[in-house]
């Protein structure tokens, strides 16, 4: 009971609510799959999947800009029969896909989603860290988790009793080992500057000095390349190179078992892009604005946030109107069905724009923490803290979505490296650059009298 009573109930509520962030990578999968498929299409001057639709009675067809296709594919994977080829190690074969997917829910626990929430509650000062577990070994924990996800591939490759999966698993393990080293070493520079393994400390160091990408540009590039390689995506996808290995370690898997590997890969991308955004792009911190300034002008900050969102909605509406106009001029027989669907989006868009502008104006004019009193308890500082957390979270999401896009962008641009080239790049080039960068950083930090 002491441990429960040691904190106020609001602390407990927020601490438990933070566990919802475990599901962020899963939500990112929903975003990444259409982004990947449409992005790949656009880069190759195709349209990407856009044909599937949901038929709504008395309205027409809804395509959701091709998103229905992903739902269909997901449902198909989900309802397919699971089978195991003869001669596999049954237990390991069925356990293997679960390993990378279990990591999906564990990895987000050390990433700081927002700055520490500090607010007054009654007569107490409450401080709630932004990560689910505010651990002093944050980065190390995350690296450990991402290494464990390689076990999924290795187990799958070994249990499938197929030479292709076995070779794929070997390649995956060797890639993971070699690029984890590069990853860790390129990370060390920024850790040295911040003087802590705790990701919240690293972000607050960046907030008070400069972003990691300015302080450690070389390390940023090394880290980016190494983490692309570590997720096993093109141009480093030698582990599942189709011309040589069919599909690598998941050759023998179908249905949702394959789906779990697929989702594990995507959430690995998500976690890595959150990590890069946190380590090198200032994490949750808003560029050029300190948290204190933002909290002092919370109403204005919220108004600007609403303004940005309203601008995005208006830009979306502009594109919609423009495309509707072009579509109306064509001879396509389904254009009225599509235009009807767009009319729905236009109505939603205008409602959203109006609501956002109204919210922004209200926040600008009427936000005053002194006014917030619920049942005699002043919650003004809690409201400010929640608003700050919201803005921080959105900023972090924007930064990480950019890096997710980098993953997709790189995948559909560069050709696959040969296996020995990958190893050469990892051990002889990136590792050396990261080491030199670490030494130079250490010397300069010592001379400049930093940490």
């Amino acid at each position, binding site marked *: 009971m002491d441990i429960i009573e040691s904190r106020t109930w609001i602390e407990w509520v927020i601490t438990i609510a933070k566990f919802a962030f475990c599901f962020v990578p899963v939500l990112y999968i929903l975003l990444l799959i259409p982004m990947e498929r*449409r*992005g790949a*299409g*656009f*880069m*190759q*001057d*195709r*349209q*990407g999947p*856009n*044909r599937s639709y949901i038929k709504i009675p008395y309205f027409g067809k809804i395509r959701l800009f091709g998103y229905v296709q992903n739902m269909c594919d997901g449902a198909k994977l989900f309802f397919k029969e699971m089978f195991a080829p003869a001669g596999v190690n049954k237990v390991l074969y069925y356990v293997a896909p679960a390993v990378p997917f279990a990591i999906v829910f564990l990895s987000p626990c050390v990433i700081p989603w927002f700055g520490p929430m500090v607010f007054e509650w009654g007569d107490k000062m409450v401080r709630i860290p932004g990560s689910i577990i505010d651990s002093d070994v944050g980065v190390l924990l995350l690296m450990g988790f991402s290494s464990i996800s390689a076990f999924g591939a290795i187990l799958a490759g070994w249990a499938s009793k197929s030479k292709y999966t076995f070779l794929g698993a070997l390649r995956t393990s060797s890639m993971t080992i070699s690029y984890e080293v590069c990853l860790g070493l390129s990370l060390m520079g920024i850790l040295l500057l911040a003087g802590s393994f705790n990701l919240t400390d690293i972000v607050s160091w960046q907030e008070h000095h400069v972003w990691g990408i300015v302080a450690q540009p070389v390390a940023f*590039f090394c880290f980016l390349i190494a983490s692309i390689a570590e997720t096993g995506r093109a141009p480093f996808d030698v582990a599942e190179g189709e011309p040589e290995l069919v599909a690598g370690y998941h050759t023998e898997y179908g249905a949702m078992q394959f789906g779990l590997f697929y989702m594990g890969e995507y959430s690995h991308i998500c976690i890595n892009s959150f990590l890069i955004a946190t380590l090198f792009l200032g994490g949750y911190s808003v560029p050029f604005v300190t948290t204190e300034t933002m909290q002092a002008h919370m109403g204005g900050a919220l108004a600007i946030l609403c303004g940005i969102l309203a601008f995005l909605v208006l830009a979306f509406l502009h*594109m919609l109107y423009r*495309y509707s106009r*072009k*579509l109306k001029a*064509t*001879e*396509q*027989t*389904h*254009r009225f069905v599509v235009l009807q669907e767009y009319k729905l989006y236009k109505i939603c868009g205008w409602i959203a724009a109006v609501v956002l502008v109204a919210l922004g104006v209200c926040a600008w004019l009427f936000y005053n923490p002194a006014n917030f009193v619920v049942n005699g308890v002043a919650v003004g500082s809690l409201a400010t803290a929640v608003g700050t957390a919201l803005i921080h979270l959105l900023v972090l999401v924007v930064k990480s979505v950019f890096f997710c896009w980098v993953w997709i*962008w*790189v995948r*559909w*641009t*560069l050709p696959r490296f040969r296996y020995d080239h990958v190893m050469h790049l990892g051990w002889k080039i990136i590792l050396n650059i990261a080491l030199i960068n670490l030494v130079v950083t250490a010397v300069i930090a010592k001379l400049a009298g930093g940490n």
Partner: protein
Amino acid sequence: MRVIKQTPMNWIERLYIFECLRGLFTTLKHAARGLFRYETLPTISYPEGQPEIRSTYRAKHRLMLRPDGTPRCVACGMCAAACPAHCIFIEATQSDDPRIEKRVMRFDIDHLTCVFCGLCAEACPVDALRMDTKKIVFEHRTRDEFVAHLNDLIDWDPKDYPEDAQSQMAPGGTKNAEALKVWGMEVK
């Protein structure tokens, strides 16, 4: 023989990373085109939007008509002789017109066998058989329906061929009246 001399890569190209960035910029341009100028993508959303087909495209056949509406075909059988797939079946009969020796009684083209080479249209001495209908979709329930008979082949509308003077001489065309006058004059 043309020999292309490959210039060795300079050191910036050998570093690879800058070439990567160039490639990334190229794909970014294409991605932006798809996102902001979606309708300029070359893809046609097929059943709803039809591809543009030129009149020289070798599509489904048609038989040209005289001004009085009879098929121009004189049943010489040269198209059937030229056909590499042997898909044209012609039966001739006596013509009612004293100026013309034969007319077709049966003119069948089996589109399941046809290879759309266009040799039949090339071989026709009276320009009766053409392949400029721009119809490229063949969908039927049974195999028999894929065989185009004489009635199907002469069933076309001059309004679909506004630029073609020969087609306009058929009944319903803009030049049918004067063509019929010339055709009738020769009878007397």
